[in-house]
């Protein structure tokens, strides 16, 4: 470890008169090689990961002939927006699905937020008997994969007349989003000092008013991030949607798009355009709350 005894600059530049590369130079070269290898590996990874997305995007923009061209035309195809027009045409089999998706995802997110935020506040602020057990129980409702519970829920829904209704989907998505909302929001509420509310109570406001006027405004970024997560879940959900809402009236976009595949001829252009349309809102929302996505992972980070 003699190298470490002399200043770094001297070590890396070598001592005058020496011809063989000194350890510092070797180290620097090694670091550069490592950087190149890293970039190369990441590039390969990115190509593999993005290939299906790029392929889908291209398919949605190619005209019918180019889609089936062999060998595939990756760069030199003529661009058309006809498939996107078809997605929103009045006789499109998916346009109704998009409408339902907006209603179901929006409503269930609002419902989960309206119920989850006050619950999270209560769990954060009050002494509640067996609080940890209760919170664990709430989270445990998410342990079961939808596929496992969908049959009993189907039977219950049949008796309640909720099959093939948007209301049914709104309720089941709210129930699925609520535990997540409570857990994530509790992290955000914990970050807001209880003293703010206490100060507001001493200033003459009731506890609920104190929450409403002081804590709630400070929770807005957290609520936005949590709601986007819930929205993305509801928007993307497939299993419940395919089992509980199969008629056109209630069917959401994921089963509607899946329904395009099958039958004798498949309009791949329409499938790709529908899928792109479907993915777009999620990408936008994820981009908008990207900072909070990280914060959400560490559970709560209100900037003060």
């Amino acid at each position, binding site marked *: 470890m003699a190298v470490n005894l002399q200043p770094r600059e001297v070590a890396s530049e070598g001592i005058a008169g020496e011809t063989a590369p000194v350890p510092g130079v070797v180290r620097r070269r090694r670091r550069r090689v490592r950087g190149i290898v890293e970039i190369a590996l990441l590039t390969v990874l990115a190509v593999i990961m993005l290939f299906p997305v790029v392929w889908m995007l291209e398919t949605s923009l190619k005209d019918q002939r180019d889609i089936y061209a062999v060998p595939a035309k990756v760069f030199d195809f003529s661009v058309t927006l006809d498939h996107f027009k078809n997605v929103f045409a009045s006789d499109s089999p998916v346009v109704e699905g998009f409408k339902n998706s907006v209603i179901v995802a929006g409503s269930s997110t609002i419902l989960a937020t309206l119920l989850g935020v006050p619950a999270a506040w209560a769990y954060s602020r009050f002494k509640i008997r067996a609080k940890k057990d209760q919170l664990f129980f709430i989270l445990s409702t998410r342990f079961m994969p939808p596929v496992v519970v969908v049959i009993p829920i189907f039977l219950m829904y049949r008796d309640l007349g909720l099959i093939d209704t948007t209301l049914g989907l709104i309720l089941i998505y709210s129930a699925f989003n609520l535990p997540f909302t409570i857990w994530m929001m509790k992290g955000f509420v914990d970050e807001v000092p209880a003293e703010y509310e*206490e100060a*507001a*109570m*001493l*200033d*003459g406001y*009731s506890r609920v*008013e104190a929450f409403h006027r002081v804590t709630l405004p*400070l929770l807005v970024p957290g609520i936005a991030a949590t709601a986007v997560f819930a929205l993305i879940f509801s928007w993307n959900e497939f299993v419940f949607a395919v089992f509980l809402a199969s008629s056109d009236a209630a069917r959401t976009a994921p089963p509607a798009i899946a329904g395009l595949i099958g039958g004798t001829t498949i309009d791949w252009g329409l499938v790709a355009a529908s899928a792109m349309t479907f993915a777009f809102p999620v990408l936008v929302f994820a981009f908008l709350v990207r900072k909070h996505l990280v914060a959400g992972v560490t559970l709560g980070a209100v900037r003060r």
Partner: protein
Amino acid sequence: MAEIHIQGLRKEFPDGTVAIEHLDLHIADGELFVMLGPSGCGKTTTLRCIAGLERQTSGNVVIGGEIVDDLSASERDIAMVFQFYALYPHMTCRDNIAFPLRAQGKPKAEIDAAVAEAARMLRLEPLLDRRPKRLSGGEQQRVALGRAMVRQPQAFLMDEPLTNLDAELRADMRTELKHLQQRLGTTMVYVTHDQVEAMALGHRIAIFDHGRLEQVGTPMEVYERPASLFAARFVGSPPINLLDVELTNGALTAAGGLRVTAPDGLRRGDKVIAGVRPEGLTLLPPGAEDAVGARVISREALGDETIYVVEAPCGQLHVRMPPTAPYAEDAPVAVRFQGGAPPVYDAASGKAVAG
């Protein structure tokens, strides 16, 4: 403006911790009352019980002649300043100060006038449209004070409000706070763990330890006649000298023969602990009459006075001397007691016995 009575207050937390064992206090109308003690002594819990943020296990809190046990914090008409100020970060200073008045539904003109008046008193006018984040610690402190006083509450509760300021600013704010309380004449209950702050501010000081009240008295009473060993140790800097002494020949004698004036009411042979303040001792050249030999361990020249720590047969002693005292470190000296009889304590109970 109101007096505050605390009657038989007890607070036990659900996990079994007893924060306050049993507390009776009477805080007079217009008084600046300081609750002093180390962290975990129950002073903040007492304050929170008065505020209504914490519900006592038993006992009563009476504000202005009314039992307020069943009133929520918002109904008690008292204002509190928190250690971390708790200014609402999403509101400007103006809105922070106006917030309690808005709760009362006062007309806008009245609110504006009251905020302007508070801002003038606290020299906050140029800062009113800023958010708390953009203020210094001292400015945030003043906004918190403004929010507390704007409503003219029955009492102010202060929870270590100066702890987060740097030393210089703390002294300034202390003066300002005292002056403000005098001008407004509002009852103020002030919690701190800083004995200098307590001595400087309080009309009376209550010393807490382990959920019990050790002593209530004026700053000078607390300093000169601490009611217990704990109170004696907690107040005063440099610390009090606690000497194991025995009553012989009409004086309290410590190991090595240091003689201390005995208070009345002790019997010959009684063994007690005498609490002698650093100014109750003086240093003399070695061999002086009526003094015991000692050696200087350290010397802190503070300018207006010099604090000596000397090693005597009865242990290490703090001695406060004028800056002219000529003794160097490691020099041999003699220590003599001066002044009237000091308070003495029973070693087992830690309580004052005679004097």
